[in-house]
């Protein structure tokens, strides 16, 4: 399927990519490649879906971008820097410019909504003044201002994921990574989260979403990268969800 000629998108590619995988392989165990020879370039302001069947290596890509794990071969660049070469103290700084959400939300059960979001600022030692300003802003953005005193177990899955999203965004990340953010949600909540991600993208954040949700991928008309057995088998602008035939 030939993509439209979108001059804005093409212009942005003249700049260096925000995220770039160059011949990246990862073997968790010697001889067994979770991903192999991955080459991906993601540009500033893009919204990218990564799809593929379970075990195809999607989460591995996310973890590589966070420098939770190191590539066995190849290099991952973010904003032109090879992140494999970042020192330990640089890694924590680096991660502050990246927001992440997961399928299982990963909220702190002993803290209310406000404190869960504020947590992301407290751990980076943001001034309390900024926290008081930023947290309500983020909670309004995800539509949960009235739930700020609630605890995670008092919220629906969709609401919990929105809290997680607010937490991911509170430090103004340049990149937002979402690993199956709608995996535990019903269709209505899934759509709400996706719409939020799209809004965030429209405000300029580069968004990478790993998902299994075919309906959403097909109707949102975004770039779609499909993995199978650890390799990129297609990468299309305004793509569709491909059935992964194993």
């Amino acid at each position, binding site marked *: 399927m030939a993509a439209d000629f979108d001059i804005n998108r093409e212009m942005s590619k003249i700049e260096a990519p925000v995220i770039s995988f160059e011949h990246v392989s990862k073997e968790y165990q010697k001889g067994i490649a979770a991903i192999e020879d991955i080459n991906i370039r993601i540009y500033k302001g893009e919204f990218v879906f990564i799809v593929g069947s379970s075990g195809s290596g999607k989460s591995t890509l996310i973890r590589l971008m966070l420098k939770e794990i190191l590539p066995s071969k190849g290099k991952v660049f973010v904003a032109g820097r090879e992140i494999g070469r970042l020192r330990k103290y640089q890694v924590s700084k680096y*991660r502050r410019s990246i927001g*992440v959400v997961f399928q299982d939300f990963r909220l*702190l059960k002993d803290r209310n909504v406000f404190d869960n979001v504020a947590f992301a600022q407290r751990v980076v*030692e943001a001034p309390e003044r900024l926290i008081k300003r930023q947290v309500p802003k983020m909670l309004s953005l995800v539509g949960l201002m009235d739930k700020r005193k609630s605890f995670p177990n008092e919220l629906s899955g969709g609401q919990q994921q929105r809290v997680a999203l607010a937490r991911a965004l509170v430090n103004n990340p340049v990149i937002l990574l979402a690993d199956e953010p709608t995996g535990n949600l019903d269709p209505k909540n899934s759509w709400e989260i996706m719409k939020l991600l799209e809004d965030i993208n429209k405000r300029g954040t580069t968004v990478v979403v790993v998902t299994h949700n075919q309906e959403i991928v097909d109707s949102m008309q975004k770039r779609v990268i499909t993995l199978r057995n650890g390799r990129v088998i297609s990468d299309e602008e305004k793509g569709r969800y491909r059935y992964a035939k194993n």
Partner: protein
Amino acid sequence: MRKIRTLFYCIGQGIRSIWKNRVYSLASAGTITACLLLLGVFYFVIANFNYAVESAESLVGITVFFEEGTTEEQILETKEKIRMRAEVADVVYISAAEAWENYKAESLNEELSATFGSDNPLEDSASLEVSLSDVSMQKILVRHVESMEYVRKVNHSESIAESFDGIKTLLWIISISLIAILVAVAVFLIRTTISTGINVRREEISIMSIIGATDFFIRAPFVVEGAIIGILGSVLPIGILYLVYGEVIRTLKEQFDSVFTAMNFIDRTKIMQQFIPLALIFSLGIGIIASHITAKRQIRKIELQH
């Protein structure tokens, strides 16, 4: 400002963690308490031993007595010979009259000394008091002086110092082995406490790490926890030893003052001034080092999982 807030945050988290984990925390603090009590008792005993030995050593030296009928001239001659020796610092001649005056002043009350009138019961007690520049040469010097002409007897107090040395070494060996065992137990308990705390909060730690908290920031609450356990463990023994030491030296003085006039103990304030820093360094050291090592290792594990 920022550092202060972080400090408060870490202290808050540390206290929270101790409370959540209070059984282990108390056990750890209790072991440190036991360590410090033992350490304290041995320290106090040994410090007082040293004190006693030091005051005795300042008196140590040898005293040379002469045969009946030795003239003052002969004594002074001997004095010069002894003074020539390298290990001798000084030789003082004490005439029989001086000896008697000294004795009266030091050991007899006035009534008692009056009964002697002008008699000198220490007629033949003129002596030379030799102080040494090198105490280890004492034995050799004694043997040499004993073989000299006119010399009747040589007194020396070496045996006191030597038996003290033996007891001191024994005390050190016992206390160091006991303390080593207790330290091992304390370290083990602190490590268990911190590990348990980290495990309870593994979710929180992995989120912190992904959000971009520094290692220092993630680890700090646990090190603070270790430090607080250390401080908690040292409060009780410091208090107890402070109170008990005062009582003990008072009782000992009351009981034995009539027997030994020179029964001296280190002043309570002074010994506490030495012991409190020692106790705090010891307990904080154990708390901080054990928790730091554990936290570093456990957090690395969590970061590598999931």
